[in-house]
């Protein structure tokens, strides 16, 4: 199909190394010259303007359900041995459920993740961050990889919250990574079988976790117990819904927050003046975190959505089944949304931050993710290692199709100022 007005000759290669390190020239070009860009390699329309991203995230005719996609990869995945059992579970994930069921399932979890509820978890988050930092410096290395620090924080917090035994945690991390890879089209057979394995093992873990809690004579009054009760007693959740919701809660934040925190450290160490201001005034912490998410977004292509009908988007025709995605990093530098968008400014007020989405699928864990990021930065760069500096260039994974994760961020920590006195 010919997308009028979007065909341009422009070397857009988001899988290239140069793009991973600095996508901003390409983003600026797209915003100006091809705000609805047809990316031939994956037959996807890519949006780059802030207003178009808002439309994309809230559009009733754009579905997050992979079953609505004409190049639906599910078929491939479901042919993998042992994968059949996942069919019903995936069909009840929050990205797949029809609106009424979605609202019912989501509400059961969202009440446990409001800002007020998350405030009560701050002490636990702080303890996790402190412990992780102590592990990081245990070897006494002068230069550390900050990714090793950010890697386990979100998973540990959520596993503590759910009472997931420590021997299961590595398995859940693998499971989460498999799920992230599974949303990509045209995967090769080796990757498909790895993904299917991750899911198969993940299902066993979920069943063990739920069964252990159900048979616990004194179950703790936490979210996991409440969700199990919602299925067993109130019949407000089906078994498949229960499994996919627990899976989503454990894994969804365990990758994105890792990268968001890594980028926050990187961006602050590149802006020593802003960091000094933050160190002098912790009330800037919240706006600083928002600005790090805006200024250098770890997102790349993001999650695809699929057109349910033929319609027009920003003046360009979209056909039924067409894949559409939003370039978050481009939108967050849109001059029509932010004054002087390329400037890192921790004083920006009410940054219209779409990092966590908008509308029906707005990130369920956004408040928890923000708290984790704030605690990690506060403890690492304000309380413990205020003299930390970059010890080289980061290594960014340019093979990752949807994000630009930092694999290695070498940092010279300097002297430890010790744990904060309570």
């Amino acid at each position, binding site marked *: 199909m010919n997308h009028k007005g979007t065909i341009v000759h422009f070397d857009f290669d988001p899988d290239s190394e140069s793009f991973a390190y600095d996508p901003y020239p390409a983003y600026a070009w797209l915003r100006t010259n091809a705000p609805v860009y047809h990316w031939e390699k994956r037959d996807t329309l890519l949006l780059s303007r802030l207003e178009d991203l808002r439309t994309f995230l*809230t559009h009733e005719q754009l579905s997050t359900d992979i079953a609505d996609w004409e190049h639906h990869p599910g078929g491939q995945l479901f042919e993998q041995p042992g994968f059949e059992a996942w069919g019903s579970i995936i069909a009840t994930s929050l990205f797949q459920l029809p609106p009424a069921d979605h609202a019912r399932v989501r509400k059961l979890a969202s009440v446990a993740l409001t800002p*007020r509820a998350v405030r009560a978890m701050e002490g636990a988050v702080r303890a996790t961050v402190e412990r992780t930092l102590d592990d990081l410096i245990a070897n006494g290395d002068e230069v550390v990889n900050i990714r090793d620090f950010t890697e386990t924080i979100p998973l540990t917090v959520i596993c503590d919250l759910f009472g997931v035994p420590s021997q299961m945690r590595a398995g859940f991390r693998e499971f989460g990574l498999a799920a992230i890879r599974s949303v990509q089209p045209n995967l090769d057979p080796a990757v498909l079988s790895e993904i299917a394995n991750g899911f198969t093992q993940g299902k066993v873990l979920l069943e063990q976790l739920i069964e252990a809690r159900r048979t616990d004579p004194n179950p703790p009054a936490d979210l996991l117990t409440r969700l199990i009760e919602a299925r067993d007693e109130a019949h407000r959740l089906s078994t498949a819904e229960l499994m996919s919701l627990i899976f989503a809660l454990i894994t969804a934040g365990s990758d994105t927050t890792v990268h968001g925190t890594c980028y926050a450290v990187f961006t602050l160490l590149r802006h020593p003046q802003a960091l000094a201001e933050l160190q002098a005034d912790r009330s800037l912490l919240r706006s600083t975190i928002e600005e790090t998410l805006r200024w250098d977004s770890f997102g790349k292509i993001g999650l695809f959505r699929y057109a349910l009908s033929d319609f027009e988007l920003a003046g360009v025709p979209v056909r039924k089944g067409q894949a559409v995605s939003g370039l978050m990093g481009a939108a967050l530098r849109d001059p029509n949304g932010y004054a002087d968008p390329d400037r890192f400014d921790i004083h920006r007020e*009410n940054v219209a931050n779409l990092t966590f989405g*908008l509308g029906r699928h707005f990130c369920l864990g*956004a408040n928890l993710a923000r708290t984790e990021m704030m605690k990690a930065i506060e403890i690492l760069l304000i309380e413990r290692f205020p003299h930390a500096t970059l010890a080289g260039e980061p290594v960014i994974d340019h093979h990752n199709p949807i994000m630009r994760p930092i694999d290695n961020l070498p940092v010279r920590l300097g002297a430890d100022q010790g744990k904060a006195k309570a």
Partner: protein
Amino acid sequence: MRLIIDVIACEANGACTRILPEALELDDEDQLHLRLAVIPPELEDKAERAVRVCPRQALRLEPSKP
């Protein structure tokens, strides 16, 4: 103008209450309350911003009935 809250969609993120505390209030149980039946003209700008920032898109503005 009147402000309408979609109580199913609202997840007590409080983005709106920071912008329009004159009309919106979260209680200790994360319920959002509307304090003004009608949004006076001088608050309309702020109300529009509150509608826009709500991450769940749970607010909307409607003309008040005559």
